Every structure is written in structure tokens, then in C-alpha cells.
């Protein structure tokens, strides 16, 4: 094998491709696709033979390269040439250029004065990330919240609680809204709650929320006469 293979330094298939282009001193706008495809596949083969955990993306790009190669071998029909003269490599080139720009941007970022590496603040301590201290709320993101929930749940070891899905959350939201309205208006009719809603999902959630609240015995439903309007109110007035 004539190539010096740098295995784990590639950040992905695009990176490998860029490396090959640079190594061969190729014009990125005019990639000799047969040559590059061949070298790319050789690298992939070596990675495979070394039992490297080869990400599927490498194979996807291999397929793309082969596809482009075959397209370029096809003779372009005379009559179509004028209105369909797109180079089959165009998409790939654009993707490579974009990736290259961000790769450069990443290097530039790395050149900034990084806190804890190039510059330090007063009393800077590398441990400041950990600990049981309270963190200012503006520093708290949703991710911390989800992590906190994950912690809470995993400590409890409660499998059933693990699923958080959008539906559950929407239901909570709807329940909250209904409780808000009941806290101010004391009594609401079913139609009050359902009437103004145009989205079918919202109507379903509202209905489920009412059922849930009744099941929890937080609200009560009344009906003065059969087929009359159903009214709901808080089960316990405060």
C-alpha cells in the first residue's frame, strides 16, 4: 500500500475526502472522480480490515462517489446538454466547500483566548464546574432540567417513569390551563372549554385533561338535566 494512512484523525468521510484532495493536490472544482474514488475506497478497506469501528457514513459517501463516477462515464445526450448541463460532482463539491469552511472556523475558534487555557478569571478553579453549589438560574438550561429529571428518575429506579413524551407534556399543559380557568371562573361548561378550539388535537387533549382531572378527583362534572350542558368545577373550592 502506497498510502500513508492516518486512521483516527478523520472527523468523517468528508474529512477523509478533503484529505485525499489535498494530498493529491487536486483542484476541488475539478475532482478526478475515478482516482479519488479509488483512493477513498482503499482507505475504507484498510479501516475495515483493521476492524476499526467504521461509521456507516463512510459507506454512504463511497456509494455517492461510485454513483458520480458512473454518471460521469455516461455519454451526455446531445439534445439534453443545453438544459441539463449540471456536473454530477457539483453537489459534492458544494458540500466539501461548506465543510472546509467550518473546519477552518473550528480552527479559528480554537485560536481564541479560551478561558481556563489562555486566560483566567479571578480565583479561577478548574473544579468550578462541579459541586453542590447553587447555580444562578439564568445559567440553567433545559438540558440541565432534563438531566435533573433523569437523575431523579434513575435514583428511584422507576422504569415506568422513564418515558417522557410530547403527549404527556401536552396533557399537563392542557390540565394547567383548565385549572387556571377554573381557579378564576369557578365553573365552566364543557362547551366553554371545547368550543373555542379549532385544532382537533387540542380538543382531544382538553377532553383527556378533563377525564384525567376527574379521575384524580380534582374536578367534578355536573349535569342539571339529561342532555343538558355539562358543567365542571373544582372538587374542592378554596
Amino acid at each position, binding site marked *: 500500500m502506497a498510502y500513508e494512512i492516518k486512521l483516527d484523525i478523520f472527523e468523517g468521510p468528508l474529512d477523509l475526502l478533503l484529505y485525499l484532495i489535498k494530498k493529491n493536490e487536486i483542484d476541488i472544482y475539478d475532482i478526478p472522480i475515478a482516482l479519488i474514488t479509488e483512493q477513498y475506497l482503499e482507505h475504507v478497506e484498510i479501516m475495515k480490515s483493521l476492524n476499526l469501528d467504521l461509521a456507516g457514513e463512510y459507506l454512504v459517501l463511497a456509494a455517492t462517489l461510485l454513483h458520480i463516477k458512473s454518471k460521469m462515464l455516461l455519454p451526455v445526450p446531445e439534445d439534453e446538454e443545453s438544459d441539463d448541463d449540471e456536473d454530477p460532482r457539483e453537489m459534492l463539491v458544494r458540500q466539501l466547500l461548506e465543510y472546509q469552511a467550518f473546519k477552518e472556523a473550528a480552527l479559528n475558534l480554537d485560536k481564541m483566548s479560551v478561558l481556563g487555557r489562555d486566560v483566567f478569571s479571578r480565583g479561577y478553579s478548574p473544579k468550578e464546574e462541579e459541586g453542590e453549589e447553587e447555580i444562578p438560574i439564568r445559567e*440553567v438550561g433545559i*438540558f440541565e*432540567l432534563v438531566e435533573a429529571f433523569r437523575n431523579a428518575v434513575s*435514583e*428511584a429506579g422507576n422504569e415506568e417513569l422513564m418515558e417522557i413524551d410530547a403527549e404527556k407534556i401536552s396533557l399537563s*399543559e392542557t390540565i394547567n390551563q383548565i385549572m387556571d380557568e377554573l381557579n378564576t371562573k369557578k365553573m365552566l361548561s364543557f362547551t366553554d372549554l371545547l368550543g373555542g378550539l379549532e385544532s382537533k388535537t387540542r380538543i382531544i387533549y382538553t377532553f383527556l385533561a378533563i377525564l384525567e382531572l376527574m379521575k*384524580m378527583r*380534582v374536578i367534578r362534572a355536573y349535569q342539571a338535566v339529561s342532555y343538558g350542558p355539562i358543567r365542571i368545577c373544582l372538587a374542592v373550592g378554596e
Partner: protein
Amino acid sequence: MDNVKAIVEALIFVSDLPVSIDKIKEVLGEEVDKKEIAEVLATIKQEYEVRRGGVFLKEIAGGYQFRTGEDVAPWIKKMKAIKPLTLSPAAMETLAVVVYRQPIMKSDIEQVRGVDVSGVLRGLLEKNLVRMVGRKDVPGRPIIYGTTRKFLEVFNLRDLTDLPSLKEIEE
């Protein structure tokens, strides 16, 4: 080493505790002797005194430390009193359980977290992140809790459906 002044100043600045001349010497190595360090320290000390800012270099407990001047103390106290809203990990967990399981009773939060949450819950109520949404009509009429509008504001959410699910996080 021509920037001894800058190095010495920075070393003291980033330390939590007063820094001794010996310690500075240890970091700077053979090139610089203690006498030079002492001279540099005197220079720095004087520079801060001359410019009459809010910070001074002080000799404390056998070492050197930057400290604020005494006259600015009232303002520092005032700023520290304007406490940003903070959350302990316990508060975060409790909040998270309320967020994803609302409307929820205190006993159910405790069931998940495995500890008493009275104090933490009170804190969240005081910070107006959690509120009582009603009472459950069972013996004891337990209060049920949910999140507030302020919770959405603080976490920059349009509504609760904006919250990511665990599944999304794991992806």
C-alpha cells in the same frame, strides 16, 4: 523573564488564598530570586495605591492577595444582596419532576425522588417556579402542583410542549 510583574500579579489574581513569596518563587523557578519578587510586589502594591481604584494588593497571613478597599464595602454588600435566582441540584430535580409529571402531588414527587421534598418545594413556590394548581378530592385533600408562567420565562420556553423528551435527549 521580562514580564515578572505581569506573572506575579496574575498568579495572585487567580488564587483563592494569599500567595506567599516562596510559592511565587516555586512557580517562577531559578531565574528569579526572592528579592526580585519582593521588589515586584512592592511595585504592584504601589501602582494600585497610586491609581486609587477599588482594589489593592494586601499582605495577608504571610502572603499577598488582592482585596477591595474598605470604602466600597457598602456597594459590594448591596450587589451581593441582589441575589440572582439560584437552584440547588435538589431543587432542579424536584422542579424537573414537577415539570414532566404535572399536575402532581407532593407525595408523588417524594415517591420519585425518594426523599422528603417539603423544604425544596417551598423554595420553588417562593421563587414562583411552581404553584399550587388545586387540590385533589381525596381524604386529606392533598395539594397538586404545576409549573408557572415564570417557569416558562426563565427557561425560555414558549409552552410546555417546547420541552425536549428524554428520548430526544438520548438520540
